[in-house]
């Protein structure tokens, strides 16, 4: 059978060499490939009668030969057609590796915008309002209403930017002032997020910036529990880092929540094994949160005996850096097009 195939192949090559026009080519096709009586088809049919190893071996060989013959046939066909069109393919040959000129540059969204949009969509799909508030805020909304007393370190000049001539105005050090503004405006129940720019009086280096972005959220209703906060955090972690991301919550003190927690997720890079990004802990601290303190609800005009809820936040800037592996925070507000073009 092997010799039969080899012979067939030689005859086909010989036949192909003699072909000078499409008509002849079609005849050749009929002779070898015809479904009913093609010579190759016949050989293939005979395969059925073999069995076991022999069938396997010759089947493979026959298919290889068939592939080779078809390839030769196709090339010949194309050759004949090119001749027919007067050598168009050659005359109009282009260098397909060349770019189109002049170059059209596309624009780029800032990486923070990309991540922020993504999270806004996630929360909107869960029925959260997307709010925004003043970046130059009052001390009242930034601290007083958030249960942060006048003696708290956050209120020091070295932590918060104050405005000259207006001792009760600050550049908001977090997005939390909108918790109270939103409660006052919309009351309960409430479901909202606030993405936004924040400011801290902090020296700038590769890991610290005086200007950064947060995304904060709040849910208030009659029966909103800590378990619900954990649920929302898990949903966000799944969305950001993929299904199966674990979260763990640990106590942390923030004056505007009680209990307060810091939330960690399994490191998305090493999947919890430990790497440079998570400082070998396997965990990344990305979301603080907690049950809204009764004093904050009161400041928002909501009766803490009737309603309760939670607040949570993300360092949006930190998420952007983690997501894209950005090693220097200063790039985000550096306006360097070599950086911006990467997104």
């Amino acid at each position: 059978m092997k010799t039969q195939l080899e012979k067939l192949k030689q005859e086909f090559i010989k036949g192909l060499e003699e072909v000078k026009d499409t008509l002849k080519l079609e005849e050749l096709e009929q002779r070898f490939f015809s479904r009913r009586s093609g010579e190759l088809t016949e050989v293939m049919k005979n395969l059925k009668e073999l069995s076991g190893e022999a069938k396997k071996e010759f089947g493979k060989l026959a298919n290889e030969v068939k592939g080779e013959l078809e390839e030769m046939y196709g090339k010949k066909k194309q050759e004949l057609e090119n001749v027919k069109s007067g050598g168009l393919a050659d005359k109009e040959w282009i260098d397909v590796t060349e770019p189109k000129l002049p170059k059209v540059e596309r624009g780029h969204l800032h990486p923070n915008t990309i991540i922020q949009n993504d999270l806004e969509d996630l929360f909107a799909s869960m029925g959260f309002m997307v709010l925004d508030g003043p970046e130059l805020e009052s001390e009242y909304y930034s601290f007083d209403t958030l249960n942060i007393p006048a003696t708290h370190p956050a209120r020091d000049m070295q932590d918060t930017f104050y405005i000259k001539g207006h001792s009760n105005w600050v550049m908001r050090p977090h997005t939390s002032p909108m918790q109270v503004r939103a409660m006052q405006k919309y009351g309960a129940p409430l479901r909202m997020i606030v993405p936004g720019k924040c400011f801290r009086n902090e020296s700038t280096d590769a890991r610290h910036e005086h200007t950064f972005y947060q995304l904060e959220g709040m849910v208030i209703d009659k029966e909103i529990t800590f378990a619900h906060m954990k649920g929302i955090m898990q949903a966000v972690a799944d969305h950001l880092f993929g299904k199966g991301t674990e979260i763990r919550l640990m106590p942390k003190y923030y004056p505007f929540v009680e209990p307060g927690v810091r939330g960690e997720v399994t490191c998305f890079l090493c999947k919890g094994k430990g790497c440079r990004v998570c400082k070998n802990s396997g965990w990344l601290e990305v979301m603080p949160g907690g049950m809204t303190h009764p004093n904050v609800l009161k400041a928002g005009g909501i009766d803490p005996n009737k309603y309760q809820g939670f607040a949570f936040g993300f360092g949006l800037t930190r998420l952007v850096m983690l997501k894209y592996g950005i090693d220097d925070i200063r790039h985000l507000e550096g306006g360097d097009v070599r950086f911006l073009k990467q997104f």
Partner: protein
Amino acid sequence: MLISFNWLKKYVDLPDSITAEDVADRLKLSTVEVESVVFQGAHLEQVVVGEILEIKNHPNADKLHLAQVDVGEKKPRQIVFGQMVKMEVGFKVPVALAPTVLPGNKVIEKVEMRGELTEGMLCLDQEIGLLKDGVSIQFFDKKVKNGTSVVEALKLNDYILEVDNKSLSNRPDLWGHYGMAWEVAALFNKKVADLDIKEFKPGKDVKLKIKIEDTENCTRYIGAVVGGIKIEPSPKWMQDYLKACGVKAINNVVDITNFVNLELGRPSHAFDRRDIKDDTIIVRRAVEGERLTTLDGIERVLKDTMCLVCDAEKPVDLGGIMGGENSEIKPDTTEVILELANFNAANIRKTMSAFDLRTDAGVRFEKTLSPHLAELGLKRILTLMKEIIPTAHLISKVVNINNDKAEKRSIELSPEYFTKKMGVELDKKQVVKILQSLGFSVVDKKANLLVSLPLWRSVKDISIPEDLVEEIARIYGYANIPAEMPVFPTNPPELNILRKLERQMKEILSLENGYSEVYNYSFVAPEFIKRIGLSTEELIELDNPIAKDRPYLRHNLWPSLLENIETNQRQAEVLRLFEIGKVFRIEQAGMRVGENSDELLPRQDTLLCLVCAGKNIAVPFFEVGEAFKSLMAHFNAEVEYKPNEKVADAFVHVGRQALVFVNGKEVGAVAELNPMTQKNLGLEARVGILEINLDELLPVLTNEKKYVPLPQYPVVVRDIAFVVDRKITHAEIVQALTKIDPLIVSVELFDVYSGKNLGENKKSLAYHITYQSLEKTLESGEVDKVHTKLIAKLEKEFQAEVRK
């Protein structure tokens, strides 16, 4: 804060199977952030006891010496050392054998120092991790064999837990091992051993007088005089605990006060009685400019807000922060006055930050300690003194001036409250058990539980039922609380239309118009503002700018985008950038400062700014102008640019500027930068700038699109070219021509040309004129008639020379 594992085990009986790491892991999940657990002997494998056999001066360095040291090897090692501690032949000290790596990744190698080989290093306590700061060294007894590992010689078998201080900011009780022990006991279901506390008979020999004048900053002062003191080193067990926590052992009296500070988190102070004039203590406010030299030898100039402890004539202690040098414990001290006072937390913090000073006492006081610790602390100190200095005894009464405000140290908690808040069922028994395991006492009053704080816990930390919920939850374990999704009604959220607009604009500008988005600081530099030729007068100023060069808040976006062009102009042939962000305008009124306040914040509108510059772009005005028109086309909005007739600012190119109208409303401006300003700023190419106020734009965007039936009859397009004066505008021509006849449905400019051959001040314009009727197919004659009228109009109204 360093926690010694051995010390913790003094109070909590943990089996050997529970390691320091296990404890750290549980604390992390339920209590505080433990940053590391370090074995005391870690990195000390190559540090041994060495005896100094010979000392010579270093031939090439005045301040260095050479020692031959017997480290238990066949030959002594030559080691170069400095002058930190005086060395003598026969001393036995810790020696690091090169090559090795000491704690803190300090690499020790065999190297030549100024031409002399050193085969190791004589180690100070700091270098082997036994001291945070300061200088001290271990001297070993003659009996200790040379070459013995220091881990063995010093019995370094402790594990040190380093706890992040920030995570302790609301838990003053955890600034001591005893408080931490209660946490560990609760987490591992163990009991806490009672503290050894004895009662002492008051003495009669000395009459201690205490007066608190500054009642605002000092609410309690307990004083007692102890006699029969003999100053000696404290016992080794105490020194070991102190060292484990990085505190230098000084003498028995000072070490006892430091020990109690690390045990109960309760600072105290001991004065040498001889230095306290008239056995009198007065707590008062400092006089502005008054001076006190503290124990660290620094003379401090005080402010009148600071609280001072004084004797009958002079200050002796910076209250709650650091003692005075003038009354410190000395080797011959025999009688001490003990101070356990309660100071105002906020004032302590203010004073420390004024001196940029953080002391072990101050960091505890600033957290608002439980006031009850003062009495407990004194009793504990007296108990330890008696144990360590058997001759010690009270020689005065315990004077207790107590103005502490009464605290509410009991809270009513209904057992169901936990479930309501946390979303997980816990029965009353479990709630009570957890609270008791943390030292709370619980009285079951049927409907509610009456929960009282253990005396070491602070009401600043626990004052409402929510605080107790946290206590129960964290010991129960946050991991044991399920993650559940809340159930909400399906009503859609209110749409934030400004955010939606911003987002649409960003996407269209970047993906369709080739503009890249930048985020700039809200702060601007006066120097740059002045170079543009703008005044800083209207700008809001920061009181405490971080970057001294950027103290102002931006009033517009475009100045920062000019900076972006400056930094990037070598990076690309054409720069197309945009930003959407808030600006700050004090001359306009914004949101309220408080809910019921009449005071208003500055207005903070959201602006959009586009800039374009490139060396091959002759008129960047058109670049930004067209990008905005194309953007607005998505909203079906009509954009008009009308030259601003008012006197323009100097930085504006007067011939290339306009106000921007959208659907008839002025919403911004577009211009090229004046080439002079451009040069001043070091910008190589012309810059087009467009800035739009989105808060103004939003109300005029209707975003309405309506279907128009497709015309049934074909259009006829005639092209026309003509020469007119260069100042005749396209807008004027379009307006005039479209009015001529209803058959003219579109007037579209397709070429502009000016050249010498046209004559000075002339330009040639070419238009496609589209004719169409809704009723029939137009015949050529009908079009000719109108087209002739159109030519006549051009010639008459604009003195156009129509090209044929």
